[in-house]
């Protein structure tokens, strides 16, 4: 049985980075439960365009939970009420008829609002540019078994690498801390031989950049891992702390 619902949306509208924003209320009728959240916003925008109003600006790209472009703080949850998914994978069947749904941009001093629900997440790119890469010559493709990496370590590295850099961790954190993101990006390399060469320099440079960009200090509330669409664990944050301290004590 297909369910259709009537909903009220409270959407943050802001014309530009320097403009004052405010919430606008919109009513949408007959939304199918099989509609994705972003398709629902598309329907809203079509309605707004037909009424001669400005459509709501929001980030999105692949719409299959891989690219990390979509954001949105929905009813008190980054990426909405469902677990381990991005906003584009959220469906309207998670809401009930007559619900009022609040839709807000990520809030953090390091993520300024560009327009409506879009925020500037360039700060993440700047952290990656500070050291989230391998720049040593790792040679040609080795034989598959030439560099033995234990399965648990390979799994840990892959789990860290599942971070799509969406920024939900920063949006969920009461301190606006980017530690889960940075720890995933440091861990995915620090665990593998290719990344170990520059591990100390990487941890030092990425943390320095993170602090400089105005992200907060981690207080271990675990809100980030609760809301992470990829289930990245705070054990990565412990590893980042360890890597950073190793780098500093080696100085």
């Amino acid at each position, binding site marked *: 049985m297909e369910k259709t619902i009537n909903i009220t949306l409270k959407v943050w509208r802001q014309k530009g980075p320097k403009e004052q924003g405010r919430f606008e209320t919109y009513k949408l009728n007959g939304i199918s439960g099989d509609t994705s959240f972003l398709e629902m916003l598309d329907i809203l925008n079509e309605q707004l365009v037909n009424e001669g109003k400005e459509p709501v600006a929001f980030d999105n790209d692949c719409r299959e939970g891989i690219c990390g472009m979509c954001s949105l703080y929905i009813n008190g949850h980054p990426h909405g009420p469902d677990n381990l998914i991005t906003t584009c994978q959220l469906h309207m069947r998670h809401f009930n008829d007559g619900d009022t749904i*609040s839709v807000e941009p990520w809030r953090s001093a390091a993520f300024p609002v560009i327009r409506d629900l879009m925020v500037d997440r360039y700060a993440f790119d700047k952290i990656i540019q500070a050291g989230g890469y391998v720049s040593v010559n790792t040679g040609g493709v080795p034989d598959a078994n030439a560099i033995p990496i234990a399965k648990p370590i390979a799994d840990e590295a892959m789990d860290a690498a599942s971070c799509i850099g969406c920024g939900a961790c920063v949006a969920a954190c009461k*301190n606006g801390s980017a*530690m889960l993101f940075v720890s995933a990006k440091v861990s995915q390399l620090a665990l593998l031989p290719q990344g170990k060469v520059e591990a100390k320099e990487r941890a030092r440079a990425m943390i320095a950049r993170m602090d400089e960009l105005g992200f*907060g*200090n981690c*207080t*271990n509330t675990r809100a980030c891992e609760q809301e992470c669409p990829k289930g990245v664990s705070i054990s990565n944050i412990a590893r980042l*702390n360890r890597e950073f301290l190793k780098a500093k004590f080696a100085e």
Partner: protein
Amino acid sequence: MYWLLNSSIGRKVIMSVSGIFLILFLLFHMSMNLTLLFSAEAYDMICGLLGANWYAIAGTLVLVAGVAVHILYASLLTLQNRRARGSKGYLASSKTDTEWSAKNMYVLGIIIVLGLLLHLWNFWYKMQFAELTGIHTGEHLPHEGAAYVSELFACPCYCVIYLVWLGAIWLHLTHGVWSAFQSVGLSNKTWYPRWKTISYVVSTIIVLGFAAVPIKFLLFNV
């Protein structure tokens, strides 16, 4: 060592190390209080040893430094974190499933400091302070700790105030213990649940040990 002050992880290391030091102090203080359960003379003897001797004064100074650093950095980190959060809050309050104590460490800290000030007024001022300065601030001799305890806890309201204070300490420690090890990087997927259990065990041992004295007074009035 400048990184300890100017990096986010460095500041967390300071919180962690000062926190672990304070936990060790609490364990020591709690063990000392337990003697009150069976012998007032033994307790007074310990109070005498911890009066104006050089090692007691040195210990007190180190402790004051530890407390000061912990409070100072907690305030600094809280201010920085509020700024990092940005001026605009969310309309919908967070529905993220997190522990209350983890999000309210600073609030719990304020309650603990208020309790600490009262505690210093109740005991330290009449004991170590009196012995050091020679000023008579209490009814009894400075080392007669047991008499001061009975005097204070004769009033059930003080027993309740101290128990509430201990409740705040318990909540603060259940987050603080595992968090201290996470902040210095001594955790992973195996150790996280272990530290979490250790947190509950350590905080419960500390708080029950301290609570034994006011509970004894509430129940038996002696």
